[in-house]
């Protein structure tokens, strides 16, 4: 089996030296401190010192949220410089003039960055396993959560790679990647609230489709669904009002937002990867020349 040479080279370079070990150490330190803080505050509570599944759910939710936030911050930093950095270092032409296809260069870069994220996610498993001490969380839920992490990391990676391909500077690519992420995470909620306020006058019936693109909504719905607060589908506000689950009967049997979010992520990733591969190809035909060709062909 031929392993992508760009992926192999990137992994070798990225894992060499103290930087990779330092990132993992810092990452695990933050997660461990969060886990210890949650467990410590629970046991300091005179009424919470007995073994209670609520402790594990609290610790699990806390760790899951912190890990999700860390992924949202780390992946853009790892991917936004993937192609723009090669351009800045003047190494891109050397790879482009080889027989390697543009899509192989893009996927090699993407998988190298996401592998590093994957390593962080997997290395956090022992910390997550702390929640098993108290019960209340199953393996299936952990697997679901980690699969969601990986899909989100790949999507953010694809956004980073796309901007890295389109923009010449790593800084610009990083800013645009964080900007897009901020729009997906907060911009869509802002538009959602505005839309519900103006169009539905608060009398909304269904989950707003735009919010399916929101990683925070997908993540919240996954956690909410895992603890059985909602009957699968949930409306916009029930995500945020955890104590008032699924009050809208129209949404009770709807598909869960995190599932749609994962499907959206997969489609978006495929589109962005294809566009990046087209963009990086130095001898690609421009859309204008393609249209000219179509016009000529029609005349003939």
């Amino acid at each position: 089996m031929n392993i992508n040479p760009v992926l192999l080279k990137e992994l070798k370079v990225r894992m060499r030296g103290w930087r990779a070990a330092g990132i993992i150490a810092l990452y695990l330190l933050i997660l461990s401190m969060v886990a210890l803080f949650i467990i410590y505050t629970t046991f300091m509570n005179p009424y919470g010192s007995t073994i209670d599944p609520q402790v594990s759910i609290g610790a699990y939710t806390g760790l899951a949220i912190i890990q999700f936030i860390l992924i949202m911050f780390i992946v853009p930093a790892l991917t936004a410089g993937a192609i723009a950095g090669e351009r800045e270092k003047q190494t891109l032409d050397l790879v482009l003039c080889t027989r390697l296809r543009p899509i192989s260069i893009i996927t090699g870069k993407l998988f190298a960055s996401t592998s590093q994220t994957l390593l962080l996610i997997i290395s956090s498993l022992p910390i997550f396993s702390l929640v098993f001490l108290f019960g209340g969380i199953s393996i299936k839920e952990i697997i679901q959560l980690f699969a969601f992490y990986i899909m989100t990391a790949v999507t953010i990676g694809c956004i980073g790679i796309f901007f890295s391909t389109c923009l010449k500077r790593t800084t610009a690519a990083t800013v645009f990647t964080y900007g897009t992420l901020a729009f997906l995470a907060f911009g869509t909620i802002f538009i959602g609230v505005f839309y519900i306020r103006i169009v539905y006058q608060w009398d909304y019936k269904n989950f707003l489709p735009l919010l399916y693109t929101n990683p925070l909504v997908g993540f919240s719905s996954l956690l909410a669904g895992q603890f059985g607060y909602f009957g699968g589908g949930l409306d916009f506000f029930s995500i945020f009002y955890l104590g008032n689950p699924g009050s809208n009967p129209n949404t009770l049997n709807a598909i869960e937002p995190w599932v749609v979010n994962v499907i959206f992520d997969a489609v978006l990733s495929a589109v962005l990867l294809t566009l990046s591969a087209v963009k990086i190809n130095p001898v690609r035909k421009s859309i204008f020349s393609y249209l000219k060709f179509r016009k000529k062909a029609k005349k003939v």
Partner: protein
Amino acid sequence: MMLSIRNLNKKYGRFQAVTDLNLEVSEGEIFGFVGPNGAGKTTTMKIMCGLLRSTSGEITLDGVDVISHSKRIKEKIGYMPDFFGVYDDLKVNEYLEFYASIYNIKGPARKKITDDLLELVDLGQKREAYVDSLSRGMKQRLCLARSLVHNPRLLVLDEPASGMDPRARVEMKEILKNLKGMGKTIIISSHILPELSELCTSIGIIDKGSMVISGSVSEIMQQVYSKKVIRIKVRDRLAEAELLLKEFPFVDKLVSGENTIQAGFEGDEEDMSRVLSALVTGGVPVVSFAQLDGNLEDVFMRVTKGDEE
């Protein structure tokens, strides 16, 4: 024909970088691509290597169209750009092994190619050093080795000796001579013109995107200078030598110095030997008799002066 370029044009917006460029390079030839900065050398080379799309025109390599078969073409071309970077945290042998792996060269073959190439560019003792720690000249040689990793038939070298000190230039020239001996077809752009005239079998001078003149070095000299120049040094009897030379219709513009005569000459080699034997049989003590070598730098200045004057 190894490389054939027909009516190549490249526009960047409104700026015409290359205009109707035609070029043919045969197998085993070393073609020197000469021109001032911004003349269109790098643009043409990048189009050849599939790193840039031409606006119009046709390039074929070994009979295969460069644009429509870019993957096949890239197996046959080795490209060394004028500016390039290196990867941090990668050792010299790992750098070459990375490029070898791209061409699906595996196992012992990969190691052998890496070792052979490092030997060729005289970097064998640096195989475990980090690429970033190499001097500029060493990096240039490593980049040349990189371009050879898949044993290409055509090498496109864009200013391979730029920024090198004199010793590194001599080393690079030696490597290129070795490659010439190995039968590689090489297209090389450079500003170090005397070195090109020594190395290249043919030369093309490009200015403002157009090929001004191309051919073998001697052909170009003949095209640029209408006459050859011969220089004769005598021990004495300078006046008699001048009189003898004036008898030949293809010798003119005699300029005499201390025991030397420089004259314009329009004949061929046979005529030249007739002049020499006439001088010797006429009793002139000839110390040396030689055709002056054309100076490529001078040719370059003449044909590329354009609108500056």
